């Protein structure tokens, strides 16, 4: 696949990026309550209130969560050295969910940020376990790695479901495992700014994650500490996942689709590609959420479902694609 001149190879990405302001504006005006330019400046101020309390927070939440999860997916792929790994195929999301459930059972009164911290700790433990397992698989077949992650996630999820069932919390469990932005209101999404801050940290360490993606020998050879990079990556991935799961619920496959698309077009020099990953992640989540709001209007389809459908198809495409690069 010879590349055309640099400008053209990035053209589709630039188009996507340009569409994000449009999508954001659309996101502000799509919904059951009538918010439009005419009602916005109407006398009762109701539309303005809806905009400020619901629509703007929702749009910001979409952008932050989308960017964060896409970047988390990229980092996971570098750490696991596998294209098919992301927080929902590595046990990260399920561990975070188990963490929240644990808090809800033992200390339901804790503030949200403490809940997120516990969820992040669980996520880190689960993901470390995943990385430890795949390191012990003698023949690291590329398909075996995500399978192990999905199975590990299944086991952890079974534990969560058992306790949620015993303590009558299945409904809450459903909320965390299926991403949904309809409940985002002012005062209930701000935690996601943590995810934004972590995305910035990830960008600053981008070259290190690229190096880690070349393997531990490669990393040691140029004088870097592989374990330290893995620890940093794990911390970022776990915290981003925890924050997203706590505030809006899991968005499956996002961390799989976006990093793979960007990698196919731009490669994996993260210093160059990570901004695109974040931008496209935000745009993709915005678009899926708007689709979810429109498809059964006036009802909403949760974004987890929309992304799940698109993501499964894309996952199959990745698996079946001819000349699939054997990672």
């Amino acid at each position, binding site marked *: 696949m*010879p590349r055309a001149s640099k400008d053209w190879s990035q053209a589709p990405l630039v188009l996507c990026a340009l569409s994000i302001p449009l999508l954001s504006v659309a996101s502000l005006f799509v919904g059951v309550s009538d918010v439009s330019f005419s009602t916005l400046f109407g006398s009762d101020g109701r539309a303005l209130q809806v905009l400020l309390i619901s629509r703007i927070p929702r749009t910001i939440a979409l952008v932050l969560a989308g960017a964060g999860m896409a970047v988390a997916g990229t980092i996971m792929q570098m750490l696991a*050295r596998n294209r098919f790994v992301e927080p929902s195929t590595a046990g990260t999301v399920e561990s975070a969910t188990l963490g929240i459930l644990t808090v809800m059972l033992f200390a339901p009164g804790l503030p949200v940020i403490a809940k997120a911290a516990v969820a992040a700790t669980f996520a880190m433990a689960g993901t470390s376990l995943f990385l430890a397992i795949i390191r012990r698989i003698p023949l690291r077949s590329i398909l075996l790695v995500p399978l192990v992650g999905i199975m590990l996630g299944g086991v952890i999820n079974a534990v969560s479901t058992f306790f949620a069932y015993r303590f009558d919390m299945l409904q809450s469990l459903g909320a965390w495992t299926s991403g949904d932005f309809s409940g985002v209101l002012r005062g209930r999404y701000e935690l996601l700014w943590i995810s934004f801050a972590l995305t910035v940290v990830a960008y600053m360490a981008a070259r290190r994650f690229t190096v880690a993606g070349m393997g531990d020998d*490669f990393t040691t050879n140029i004088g870097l500490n592989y374990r330290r990079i893995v620890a940093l990556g794990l911390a970022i991935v776990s915290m981003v996942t925890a924050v997203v799961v706590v505030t809006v619920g899991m968005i499956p496959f996002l961390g799989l689709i976006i990093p793979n698309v960007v990698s196919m077009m731009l*490669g994996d020099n993260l210093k160059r590609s990570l901004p695109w990953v974040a931008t496209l992640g935000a745009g993709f989540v915005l678009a899926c959420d708007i689709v979810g709001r429109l498809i059964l209007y006036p009802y909403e389809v949760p974004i987890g479902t929309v992304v799940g459908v698109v993501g499964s198809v894309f996952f199959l495409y990745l698996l079946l694609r001819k000349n699939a690069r054997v990672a």
Partner: protein
Amino acid sequence: MIEINDVQKAYGDAIVVKGVSLALPKGGITSIIGPNGAGKSTLLSMISRLLPMDRGRVLVDGLDVTTTKSDVLAKRLSILRQDNHMTARLTVRDLVAFGRYPYSHDRPTVEDRAHVEKALGFLDLEPLADRFLDELSGGQRQRAFVAMVLCQDTDYALFDEPLNNLDMRHASAMMRLLRRAADEFGKTVVLVLHDINFASCYSDHIVAMRAGEVAFQGTPEAVMRKEVLTGIFETEIDIHDIEDRRIAVFY
């Protein structure tokens, strides 16, 4: 000089490297040869701190590889392993540029860029510089990794099977290039080689290993002898002198 002192490595009950002591001279090309499972690659990995040793120590110009900071060593010694199984999709130029990481970390300088271009030129990689590694043939990719190691510009450069994936033309070109690195730039090159004839023709010093131990070492003339090689490889090997070169025939 690389001083290897009583270095040992075991995997479970199997001792792969048995208390090896060895001094690799500074300058020139040293080749480590020996049958499969002799412990050549394991020894090379321990010298380059990729693998912890169970016992003993390795000094590179007096620096203990286990206690010296990794980023300090990265400016002295570089290592290229044989399996460069990679996930990150990089262009050749990006890869080569990572050779400068020990010097400038996250901020490549103008000088670094000059080093990168020089290394690309040295290996005839300019036409491929903007191609992704996964779009290259095995041999081209191997050259890209060697360019990265040269770009790292260390006194010692260690290569595990650098001729893997290379056809005859590229294999001998690679050996001539390593020869130039040693002769013109004063690098110390240490190779693990399978092909004993390449070792014979291009090395200054040969170390022969067998069953985790150093079986014999010396100049190519001293090592390339019927009775020495037959013992090491446990197979009938004849030596012929062809135009000043000692060639082993074992087919």
